């Protein structure tokens, strides 16, 4: 059938439906993408993105020579690496343990409780931390005092920053992270468990020999998807926690970009940093996907 004008006219509203979305994506996604060119320019507000002079790799040389940048990079990898090493396996273990709960009502209760922190704003979570850990009247320090110990400045200390970062992140996302795994577990064929228990396998054994292998494909997909987060430790969580006392271990790439970019208007240099990190994140994603497929596992494509 030929495309007649009448047919086109009927389809016209569909194109109108697309317009707001297309305009928004151009304005807030594609134009900023073109704005990446200022990484190679000396951006001046009056000249704008297109009119500013090209400076080659000068911005990249500038941040590469800054000790603060390397400190932020080191902190980022340390924090995100620890997070991946700790939270990722704990989430799987937690999903397996939730699955072992036999009472439906209790299972539902545990899920309700453990999903809740995901919906609490980071700024509120930092408020909890501050209330519990503050030096003067925090619950933790009044406990320490009552057993005769010296109070500890938890929120303003380099030594305590990493544990607090990891534990608060775990508190917020551990429960929520189990959803995908639990859904995958629900899809496992019950006959496998019946056969195993006939052969005398206990609950613990079934967990390791049936449940875990069956959700391995999901585990590898989640792992691949988490690889790019190695480069972003999370502004929402870290920015409110940074103070002069802990900045040495707390400053990460994201907050460094924020402090120098928006705070001190060093647009070109911070865009260059952003460009390098996002290229690295994409490369890591593609690389881990490739390796996972090479190893015979699942990939995301």
């Amino acid at each position, binding site marked *: 059938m030929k495309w007649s004008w009448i047919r086109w006219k009927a389809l016209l509203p569909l194109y109108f439906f697309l317009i707001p979305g297309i305009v928004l994506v151009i304005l807030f996604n594609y134009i900023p993408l073109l704005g990446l060119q200022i990484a190679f320019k000396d951006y001046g507000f009056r000249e704008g993105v297109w009119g500013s002079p090209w400076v080659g790799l000068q911005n990249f040389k500038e941040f590469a020579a800054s000790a603060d940048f390397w400190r932020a990079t080191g902190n980022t990898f340390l924090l995100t690496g620890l997070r991946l090493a700790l939270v990722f396996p704990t989430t799987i273990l937690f999903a397996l343990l939730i699955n072992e709960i036999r009472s439906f009502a209790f299972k539902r209760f545990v899920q309700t409780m453990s999903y809740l922190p995901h919906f609490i704003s980071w700024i509120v979570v930092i408020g909890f931390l501050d209330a519990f850990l503050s030096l003067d009247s925090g619950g933790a320090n009044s406990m320490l005092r009552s057993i005769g110990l010296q109070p500890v400045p938890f929120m303003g200390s380099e030594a305590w920053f990493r544990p607090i970062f990891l534990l608060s992140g775990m508190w917020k996302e551990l429960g929520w992270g189990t959803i995908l795994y639990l859904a995958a577990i629900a899809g496992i064929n019950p006959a496998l468990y019946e056969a195993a228990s006939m052969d005398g396998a*206990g*609950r613990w054994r079934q967990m390791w020999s049936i449940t875990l292998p069956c959700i391995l494909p999901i585990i590898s997909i989640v792992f691949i998807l988490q690889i790019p987060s190695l480069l972003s430790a999370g502004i929402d969580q870290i920015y409110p926690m940074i103070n002069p006392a802990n900045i040495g271990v707390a400053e990460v790439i994201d907050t460094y970009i924020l402090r120098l970019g928006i705070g001190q208007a060093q647009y070109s240099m911070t865009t260059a940093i952003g460009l390098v990190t996002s290229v690295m994140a994409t490369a890591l994603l593609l690389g881990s996907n490739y390796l996972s497929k090479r190893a015979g596992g699942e990939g995301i494509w």
Partner: protein
Amino acid sequence: MVEGRRGLGQTFSNRTFTVVNTLCMLLFSFLCAYPMWYILVLSFNEGQDALMGGIYWWPREFTLGNYIVVLSNSIIANAFWISVLRTVIGTVGSLLVTSMVAYALSRSELPGRRPITLFFLLIMLFSGGLIPFYIQLIQLNLINTFWVYIFPSLFSVWNMLVMRTSFRSNIPESVVESMKIDGAGYVRIYFTLILPYSMPLLAALGLFTAVGHWNDWFTGAFYVQDINLQPLPTYLQRVMSSVEASNMISASQINAAREASMYNPAAVTTKSVRMATIMLTTLPILLVYPFLQRYFVKGVLIGSVKE
């Protein structure tokens, strides 16, 4: 005989496992909920008294004073309304814009559907990053306006994909065809068939979007300088610094004479005011949480279905 003994052993170890697991899960559930309880208790306790510490389970010197200070503060009342407005407008707008795109792309007879879909999908892979985005906000004169909360998040690719899949698979094509034969155009089909029949999905996605709007402190802190335009979580971020909290207390002391019978103004501290502000920010989330819960698994899983 051997069989029987092994069976008994299994039952015993299974029972131990159940007990230990139940205890672990109870402990974990407690740890998830306790921080909120702790803040709630402190927010209802007199500030001076709380400074002595030792309050964990129940208020020692009960007072409504902290809430009176917080709720009578005009900046916080304003911040609350900014939060409500941005959440409502942002959520409704986002559902509308996103579902319109999803609907158009769900129609297989739309010429050019593939390249347009690709145009939207590409933004999931590449992003300009924080600073070019910020420069664009400056160029668009969105900095320091209310609309910076709305426009940049009006379209969500992720939600679009979820909706598109649902429009395709959950709405019978035969109904669409019969409506067409009756002379209904695409606009009418969208408003009288697609939207009403997708309400559960839209509610689920809308709740997640709304929570995101309500919890966002970042936009208000970095893209808006005008205090009168900052939402509640941004205000909370500022109250975390004591200066702001003591401003709030001294502002409330002007009215203190009037309310002196209701609470002891001298007992209010920066910390106790902060606790009440935290509760005020969290309460709406706790209220919608039971409704959200119905959609958890659904909302997350629809999105993760591989095509």
